[in-house]
């Protein structure tokens, strides 16, 4: 009876806290956030910051844009957190949010500046690009930015977290066959663009 009273009236429920594993999981952190502990969200963000930022960077090719989109993504995820379902996993869920944000961003950019290729212009002058990146990696990043946005997204998701086509299909909410087509076409285009690096000429 004492335990029941404690469970009903005590905010820190002893039997939940005594279990060790749940404190580590994303689902546990999300529950804390939904109960009003905002700091738990900071922990969650730290876990997924790299993933979200890297997707945004590969899609936009610019540090500033990637930072803006990452922030926007985490804010959106925060407001929509109660709609998150544990069984789908936070990684795929947040990947879907940043993917859609990036695709919208690219579409908007295209509408605003149809003639210029902004991302590519900025790529070579960005001083914060890591210096150790060799020429080939640079060429790949440039070639990726030349891909159509959805092909670019599929390629990024494929190699970033090692997702397979089925997982990418779930993230992007498109059929698996379409993912495969996008990925194959992306690879073919990249191969064509990088061919002269490999075979000289």
């Amino acid at each position, binding site marked *: 009876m004492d335990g029941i009273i404690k469970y009903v009236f005590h905010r820190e429920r002893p039997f939940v806290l005594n279990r060790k594993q749940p404190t580590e999981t994303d689902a546990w952190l999300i529950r804390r956030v939904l109960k009003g502990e905002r700091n738990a969200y900071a922990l969650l963000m730290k876990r997924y910051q790299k993933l979200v930022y890297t997707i945004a960077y590969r899609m936009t090719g610019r540090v500033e844009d990637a*930072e803006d989109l990452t922030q926007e993504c985490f804010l959106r995820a925060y407001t929509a957190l109660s709609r998150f379902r544990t069984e789908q996993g936070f990684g795929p869920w947040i990947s879907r949010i940043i993917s859609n944000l990036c695709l919208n961003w690219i579409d908007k950019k295209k509408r605003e500046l149809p003639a210029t290729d902004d991302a590519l212009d900025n790529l070579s002058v960005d001083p914060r690009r890591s210096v150790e990146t060799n020429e080939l990696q640079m060429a790949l990043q440039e070639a990726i930015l030349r891909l159509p946005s959805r092909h670019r997204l599929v390629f990024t998701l494929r190699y970033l977290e090692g997702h397979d086509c089925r997982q990418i299909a779930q993230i992007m909410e498109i059929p698996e066959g379409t993912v495969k087509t996008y990925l194959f076409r992306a690879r073919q285009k990249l*191969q064509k663009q990088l061919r002269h690096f490999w075979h000289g000429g």
Partner: protein
Amino acid sequence: MAQSIMLCHQATERIQEYLEQSLTDQKKSDLASHLLDCAACRKTLDDMQQLHQLAIQQPIPQTDSDLVAQVMEKIQMHPETLPQRQPHGSLVALLLLVLGLGYAGLLGWHQWVSRLFFPVNPGSWLQRAVNILDDQTAQLTGMQPSWIWPVLLLLLALTLLWNHRTLSRNSGG
């Protein structure tokens, strides 16, 4: 000649599927025998494998700014961006409360509850069913038969209400 072009076209697809590890053994050996004869497709496979390796090793870009801190700041500054809550908790609690009180009334737990929910006698068949259910539970738990269900249901409802109140208070801003 036409057949050869067709085969190369197929081989390019197969090479991609090979990289995705979705080739059956039969298709794999078909591809291997084509590659033996076709230098162009060997080159394609070579390129694709290089691309594969390059993409895997692509460096992760660094950011100087503390994005987590910036997002946290925005969250603190705009309390209206709080997670939207669904009122399921309180609805379930209300439902349980009504059920609990109804059941209590059925058992004549308190005169006022009885009058509230069952102004007329519920009838002997219902009373009998309730009695059977109650006796069984009483034997299992050792509680007073008429107390078991109302107490349990009210406790459950109270828990849910309390949870919901805590949630609303913490997120109310």
